[in-house]
């Protein structure tokens, strides 16, 4: 559970920063030689409470903590080592009988978690026209993220009944274990998690720099198709892993950075009509490079690997692709747009010297998302050139809305950016 979700969070943040970068105006435009652009942006995510599961259905992100504590799940270790030992003993008492099998009978109720994540991203991007057909840029995000987690126990608990059934035939440890299990509470579940060396679940927050990106965008080809102005752009950038990476001792933190270097190669085909209508298509491929990180490696499929399972892990991330199409219109100062895009992140792989189930770490790492974006903004560069406005400035308000996905956070955000120019006017 944890590992799936960690991958999921990883992707979520990765996508967030990727989105922030592509939103930078500087990255989509080739600046004239000697002209620079600086852009400030702020992205505000709606409270994140849902994600797309592996089947594409929306589910609460608190589900990562949802756990039915029945005998079979306890036997797998999903309730921790103590409850696994209890279930193992009950299994021994049940022998090979399916009738009144104590493990099948045992139910301690269900742990239900509710998690709410808050993320806000501010970013600064700077671009500069190195050549009339080539611009360089750098973007630096600053992320403030937090999660709040609550657990509660629901449903019936029959441990006391089983204790009565076993009577004096049970070891005192089993009797005591069943008595303890009959009174299990959410706070005990949290305490048992913390006893494994994990930080308290209730609240986690982090403020800091995300992954920095540097790159270049250039005109590959420009021309006219009838009355349409057409251009093909190429963009490449390097994502530098300067952001926060999940701490293996914290269950409720999220990756602010990817933890690995990533190189993006993108082509953008755009046409513009004299009336201001425009349309573009883009294709991106991200080559992601392996990295080393600390993780807790499960022995098998246990949900909460023990603290001593923390080890250095070689992380080979899958690559990413994104395909999108954008259309819009610019009328005088006003610019509006609509974008439809699909992302895919291929599965990750983990390896290490400690024996364990590395495949479990990869569960759910293959993910996808289809989204749409609506944008509206203003652009005073024309008026500035015409001498009717003192400052060349571009502002934009954008809404990002997920449509469907798989193993992805169902997140929506609103972003506002403001850009201006410097250099040779």
């Amino acid at each position, binding site marked *: 559970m944890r590992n799936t979700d960690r991958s999921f969070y990883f992707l979520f943040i990765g996508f967030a920063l990727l989105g922030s970068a592509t939103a930078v105006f500087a990255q989509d435009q080739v600046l004239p030689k000697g002209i620079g652009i600086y852009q400030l942006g702020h992205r505000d995510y709606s409270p994140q409470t849902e994600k797309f599961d592996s089947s594409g259905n929306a589910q609460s992100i608190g589900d990562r903590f949802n756990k039915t504590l029945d005998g079979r799940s306890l036997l797998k270790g999903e309730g921790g080592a103590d409850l696994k030992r209890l279930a193992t003993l009950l299994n*021994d*008492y049940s022998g*090979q*009988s399916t009738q*009144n099998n104590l493990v099948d009978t045992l139910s301690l109720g269900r742990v239900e978690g509710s998690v709410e994540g808050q993320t806000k991203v501010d970013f600064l991007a700077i671009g500069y026209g190195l050549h009339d057909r080539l611009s360089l840029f750098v973007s630096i995000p600053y992320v403030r993220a937090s999660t709040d987690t609550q657990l509660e126990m629901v449903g019936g608990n029959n441990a006391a009944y089983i204790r*009565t*059934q076993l009577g004096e*035939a049970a070891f*005192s440890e089993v009797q005591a274990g069943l008595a303890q299990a009959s009174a299990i509470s959410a706070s005990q579940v949290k305490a048992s998690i913390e006893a494994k060396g994990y930080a308290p679940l209730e609240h986690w927050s982090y403020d800091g720099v995300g992954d920095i990106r540097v790159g270049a965008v250039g005109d590959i080809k420009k021309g006219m198709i009838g009355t349409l102005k057409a251009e093909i752009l190429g963009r490449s950038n390097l994502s530098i892993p300067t952001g926060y990476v999940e701490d293996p001792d914290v269950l409720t933190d999220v990756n602010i950075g990817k933890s690995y270097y990533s190189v993006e190669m993108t082509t953008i085909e755009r046409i513009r009509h004299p009336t201001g209508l425009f349309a573009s298509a883009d294709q991106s491929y991200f080559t992601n490079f392996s990295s080393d990180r600390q993780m807790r490696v499960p022995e098998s499929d246990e949900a909460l690997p023990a603290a001593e399972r923390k080890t250095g892990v070689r992380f080979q991330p899958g690559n990413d692709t994104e395909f999108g199409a954008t259309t819009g219109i610019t009328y005088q100062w006003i610019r509006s747009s609509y974008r439809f895009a699909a992302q895919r992140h291929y599965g990750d792989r983990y390896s290490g010297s400690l024996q364990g189930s590395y495949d479990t770490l990869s569960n759910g790492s293959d993910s996808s998302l289809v989204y749409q974006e609506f944008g509206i903004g203003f652009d005073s560069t024309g008026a500035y050139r015409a001498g009717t406005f003192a400052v060349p400035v571009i502002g934009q308000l954008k809404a990002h809305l997920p449509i469907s996905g798989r193993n992805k956070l169902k997140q929506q955000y609103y972003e506002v950016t403001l850009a201006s120019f410097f250099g040779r006017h």
Partner: protein
Amino acid sequence: MDQHRPQAFPTRNEVIAIVLALAFHACGSSDTVSQRLPAGSGGHGSADSSAFSPFSSDPFLLQDLAAAAATKAQAIQRQGVTPEPNTLWALSQADGRPTIKLKLLRRMLAAPGALPEILVPSVRLSIQTDPKVLALLSSGGLGAVLSSLFLGDADLTLKIHEGIAEKVNRKLGGPALAPDLLWKFDAYTDAATTSGVPNRFSVRQQTARWNFVLGVNDSWNSTTSPPPGATDRGTILLAALQVFSDWNHAFGITSGQDGVPIGGLLVPVQSPDPKKMLAIDRHSTTPQEVTLTGSYSVQYTSGSLLSMAMTPTDRWSHADQPIELSEQAMLWRSMAHAFARLRPDRRQGMTPFFEATGGPIPNDIHMLPLSLLPGMSRLLKDSFIDIENRKVRGQSLTGTGTGQASLLAISRLGQAISAWQAALTNLDQAQVPANVAQQLEEAAAEFQRLLQLLTLNFLSAVRPNTGGVGYQLDNINSNDQAHDPSVLATTAEVLTTLMRLEQNDLPSSFLRERLIGCVHGFAQAFMPLLVGEGQAPTSMADLVWTQQLLVTYLKYEEANDSSTWAQNFLKYLELVLDKVEAGAIL
């Protein structure tokens, strides 16, 4: 016969060590036994006894019970009922049937054993110290001639028998011993016919006999049962004296005139080297972790009985082999039984036969069984109980447990532990030193944990009865097939033992539900074998254990409410046993 006080009683330090060793480290402390659950509180999954019948049509409604029982009894009579270990073991744990038991006792008293009675340590010593014999031997070279003239083999034998009969009869208030009840131990035989020939006995056989002898009748405790007739008491007493004499030799209690123990067949539990047979060392400050195990053989040189008595002629050897749990459990069970039987507060019915009132039995004979507790503790802790895996091992090989114990071995260990648990209560009245009593009672508290472990192992072996009703058991006697060929009796013994444990020591509706289901499975599988003629041969052990199983089963309210089949089945078995008891089959 001159009786000797056993001198192998554990010292204080030994007993402390026993207790410490008995504190099975991984078992922790036991909890207080909770209230017995109300019948039928098992909730879902409880056995539905009302819906069960092992037959599509009840055979007891189709035939005359008495006629069927007579047919079965005749079949058993044709086979014969002999004091073989399985029969003795079964009868020793069954209430009632005094006539069968006394007949078997008499049969045992007349049976040959492995060693000439002249070599019984106490008999040998009494001859060695007899003034008349000493006077004859002091006559130089004439001694041998004179002794053969005045003390021939027949004379010696007669004197031994007369001495014993006189002592027993005096206490019984008159001549009561039947003429055929001579001083013939099961473990000892007539030297004239077997001298020079190796003889052998097994601990399994002897423990079954010891347990049986000390279990016959309740004449030991007159407060709960009136003493039987004088003849019966004499038989019981004589058989008990034989047991004590066996112990004398096995434990090496009596020393010869040279101070060297006579006998001593104990082997160290951790390295049962056949060359290192030991006697109990009463001067040892550390507990002797020893036991009796496997089979022993003896060779002795031929000669006159007098010469055999005067010079050590018996050479014992012990086969090197793993120590089996099922055998040791029988030994421990019989020792627990012996301690409980011989405690001063529970032997009022036999008071005249103890030394304090001029009788032949040492007053503190009840302490002797305690001397095996250190060995028992060591074997359980190091070999038979695998705490880490919560398993019971079937064998001990040089101090290490191997294999998985069969259910028979587990149930017999359960019998032993339960018996020790009961035997070690109220020790303040048992004439056991107070500090020893306290430590033993504390150790006994740990037995509950061991019983729980045995129960867990039993429950692990329960599985649904394939194609039938209720449950069946795995691994009933895989380790003991050579010794216990009867699966029927073995299964009944296992289930009876577990039901008794549940009823007396470990009340548990879950265990009860499983056991009731097992009884149903047992009935479906074995009832047809026990009913009617022309079926598979039925042994006494089959009959007795099945009868005990039904008696124990019917104590359950769930079973007793509607189990007509069980009541009829029990009635049938009682009739068979009545007829066997009444018949001249021995």
